[in-house]
């Protein structure tokens, strides 16, 4: 990639040098679990603070440790990050350390005063979660009126000259509204739109009706491709999350960042992405559960966790032999390595077999089959927990027959 094109990419995009040197280019930091929304899909089951969240001094020290590792972008999340009293101090410290800082928020109480103070502290951009239109958003976010408040926050962010993005969930409720939602957020001034498939973790694991079925990837991917092309023409840059894909004829269109040859090359957790929980727990990806925690900065320096924790190294250790089910013999196995670790673990109880895949849905469809997920075990009710699902392989509805239960 030439230098000019590389300069135009968002700073959180990792290049080959970043992978080779294993730079945590993008750090996603939950600075509090306190939240003013009650989202029915929340993976961390946010609401009240964690028992032992980092103090201001600990948080500021952690900023320095993140910078020492060469991170370029720190995204603050929650819960709701602005509910932490010292959040602007943390923003200012991140900027002073030479890193980009963005806020990901539900926007319910992102007041004019808060946006102005954040801009003054150096905040670079804000991503507002908007899931569907009006009542759909309000239902998913658990607060009546939250849709209008989120849109108002987006306009406020735009008015202050901050980069304005929207994050949306793709699930059974929002899928039919994505096209209309794109019109709404373009009108409100968004320039980036990150879309993620709702993953069966935390509260979402308690609502299987909300989750997409694997065969729906046949609908999702052409739609996203069409929105990506149209959005680009209208000044909106669509960014699929790592759990959206994979391959098939639309991969190039939806993941195109100034280069049509960009494709999903496997989960990057622990290689160029790091997640931090509010109590100082370090993970290789913000969405992963406690089984993937590499340590806590209260006990171990961040560099030591990042460089030496075996738990954080699962991506580097994973081989095709670790894959199972369809993914084990997939044409893309060596590149994809089972897609998003978070998605497959949350659904199947362990990584390496990911039914939420376009290529897989296409291959099944070619045989007149489709996969359906059936929940067989509830989640225990903890932050970042998950239940368990079985895959039912069945003929597409036009050819009804008895379903066959398999375990991947």
């Amino acid at each position, binding site marked *: 990639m030439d230098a000019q094109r590389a300069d135009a990419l968002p700073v959180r995009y990792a290049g*080959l040098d*970043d*992978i*080779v*040197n*294993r730079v945590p280019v993008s750090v996603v930091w939950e600075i509090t679990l306190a939240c003013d929304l009650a989202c029915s899909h929340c993976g961390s089951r946010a609401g009240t603070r964690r028992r032992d969240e980092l103090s201001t001094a600990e948080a500021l020290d952690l900023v320095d440790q993140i910078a020492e590792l060469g991170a370029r972008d720190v995204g603050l999340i929650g819960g709701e990050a602005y509910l932490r009293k010292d959040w602007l101090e943390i923003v200012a410290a991140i900027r002073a350390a030479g890193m980009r800082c963005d806020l990901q928020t539900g926007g319910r109480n992102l007041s004019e005063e808060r946006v102005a103070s954040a801009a003054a502290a150096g905040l670079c951009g804000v991503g507002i979660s908007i899931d569907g239109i009006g009542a759909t958003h309000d239902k998913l976010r658990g607060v009546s009126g939250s849709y209008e408040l989120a849109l108002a926050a987006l306009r406020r962010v735009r008015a202050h000259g901050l980069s304005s993005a929207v994050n949306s969930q793709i699930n059974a409720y929002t899928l039919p509204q994505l096209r209309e939602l794109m019109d709404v957020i373009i009108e409100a001034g968004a320039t980036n739109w990150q879309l993620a498939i709702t993953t069966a973790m935390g509260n979402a694991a308690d609502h299987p009706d909300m989750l997409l079925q694997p065969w729906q990837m046949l609908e999702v991917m052409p739609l996203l491709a069409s929105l990506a092309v149209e959005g680009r023409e209208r000044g909106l840059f669509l960014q699929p999350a790592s759990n959206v894909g994979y*391959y*098939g*004829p*639309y*991969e*190039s*269109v939806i993941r195109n960042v100034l280069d*049509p*040859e960009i*494709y999903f*090359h*496997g989960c*990057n957790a*622990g*290689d*160029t992405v790091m997640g931090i929980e509010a109590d100082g727990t370090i993970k290789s990806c913000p969405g992963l559960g406690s089984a993937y925690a590499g340590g806590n900065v209260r006990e171990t320096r961040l560099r030591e966790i*990042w*460089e030496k924790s075996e738990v954080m*190294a699962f*991506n*580097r250790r*994973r081989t095709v032999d670790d894959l199972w089910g369809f993914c084990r013999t997939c*044409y*893309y196995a*060596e*590149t994809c*390595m089972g897609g998003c670790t978070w998605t497959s673990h949350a659904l199947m109880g362990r990584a390496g077999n990911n039914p939420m895949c376009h290529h897989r849905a296409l291959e099944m469809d070619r045989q007149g089959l489709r996969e359906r997920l059936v929940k067989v075990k509830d989640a225990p009710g903890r932050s970042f927990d998950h239940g368990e699902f079985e895959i039912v392989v069945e003929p597409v509805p036009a050819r009804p027959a008895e379903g066959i239960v398999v375990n991947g």
Partner: protein
Amino acid sequence: MAESGRIPVPLRLCRGCRHFVCVDDREDCVFCGTDLDAADAEHEANVMEMRRAAQALRDALAARG
């Protein structure tokens, strides 16, 4: 010194069906049968032609002042 991350296994884009294919597939696309090298060559030629046309347009606009 940190251990290196996992180096992605490269794929190439089939210009015929837009599927990515393994770089070891040196002849025809496994999905649509397109001759990969020939399609790449045709794509390159088209890109060059578009660049020439764009430059000609820029030159013409510049000449008009």
